[in-house]
């Protein structure tokens, strides 16, 4: 089964309070109250959401080596549309139906306008991707986030337990417990159990 078979839900909701979508030692994705949300469905089940509102994304993409810390934390205001795939059960508890007024606050005249923009984002994300549902992604085992960046391309965050991969315009950060890889414009750093390789470009 292909992710191209996705479809968006009919109802646009909004968050009733601050909701933490994902959190671990190195990062957090949090959305504020009144953030619009439309579900991404597959096989009549909610597999994720497209959100639009205010929120923040923090990621400590820093590698600790014997020579000192390398890298900078990522700190993003989530004011543009972004997509999340993963466990929706907890999120559903914090959603209420969005009114025309709520949509207007975010610059939409109606639900369809928001749904169209959400569909564009999904189209951009799923374009040419063949992500097999049961092999690569399970709704209870991980999260995928796609944030639009300044160049209208997508920054991707994939997290599962203590493992995470973040790919943005200028950095790639991979972390798996004691193993960390950071690729930045100036260097590539790999650490594993205290041992480090630093390659200056």
């Amino acid at each position, binding site marked *: 089964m292909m992710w191209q078979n996705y479809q968006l839900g009919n109802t646009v909701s909004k968050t009733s309070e601050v909701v933490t979508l994902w959190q671990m*030692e*190195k*990062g*957090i994705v949090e959305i504020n109250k009144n953030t619009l949300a439309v579900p991404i469905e597959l096989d009549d089940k909610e597999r994720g959401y497209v959100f639009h509102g205010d929120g923040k994304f*923090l*990621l*400590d993409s*820093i590698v*600790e*080596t*014997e*020579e*000192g*810390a*390398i*890298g*900078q*934390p*990522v*700190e993003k205001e989530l004011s543009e549309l972004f997509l999340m795939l993963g466990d929706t059960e907890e999120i559903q508890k914090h959603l209420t139906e969005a009114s025309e007024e709520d949509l207007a606050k975010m610059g939409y005249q109606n639900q369809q306008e928001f749904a169209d923009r959400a569909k564009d984002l999904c189209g951009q994300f799923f374009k040419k991707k063949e992500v097999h549902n049961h092999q690569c992604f399970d709704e209870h085992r991980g999260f995928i986030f796609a944030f639009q960046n300044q160049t209208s391309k997508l920054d991707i965050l994939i997290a599962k337990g203590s493992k995470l991969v973040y790919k943005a315009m200028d950095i790639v950060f991979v972390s798996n417990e004691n193993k960390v890889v950071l690729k930045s414009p*100036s*260097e590539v750093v790999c650490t594993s159990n205290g*041992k*480090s*390789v*630093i*390659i*200056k470009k």
Partner: protein
Amino acid sequence: MAMFIYVDLYLIFIELKRISVKLRSVRIKLSEELSEEMKKLKEEIANLKEQFRNVMGGERERRRGIYIDVGDRVHDYVEDMMEGVAEGIHGELEKSIFIGPRGVRILRRKEPHIRRDEVELSFPKAAEVMSALGHEHRLRILDELMSGGKYINELQEKLSEITTSTLSSHLKVLEEAGLVVQEKVRGRYLITMPGRTAYKMARRVTRFVERRNQE
């Protein structure tokens, strides 16, 4: 008549003998005195030579001290320090470092080495870095962070004589100079690669100056 002459000659002989003995004793005495005098003179000359040597040798030592040991080396070192913090950091990043089970191996670039004095120094950046290092509490913060990342309350325990707001402002200065980075999620403060280099340089310079001042 002949008898008188003989007696006179005998008396003259005796007198000559007595004079001869006396002269010999005088000669011996004079010889001893002369020998003593010569010995004293030799000792005096030796003393004078020694004094001369000391005076000239001391002067040479003093000159050597001024021109070689103290002046140039301190000057070079301070100049290196002033020019070098930002460049040193840059230099560190110019290397590829491999830390493996058998130790540290540094792989330098194959590009031709650029002499330090050929690289243009960014004075504002150098001043910022030096200014960040120029406070006892900030150096102590770096010292604490050398052993690993720390939360602000852990640093506050170590620097209990300053307030939390003062500590925060010091950390901000260090962050702006790129010597420290703060994790956004956990909030720990970590010393960066340039921070470690700058801290090590500060220690080296301090040790060097202290040693020189003691000499």
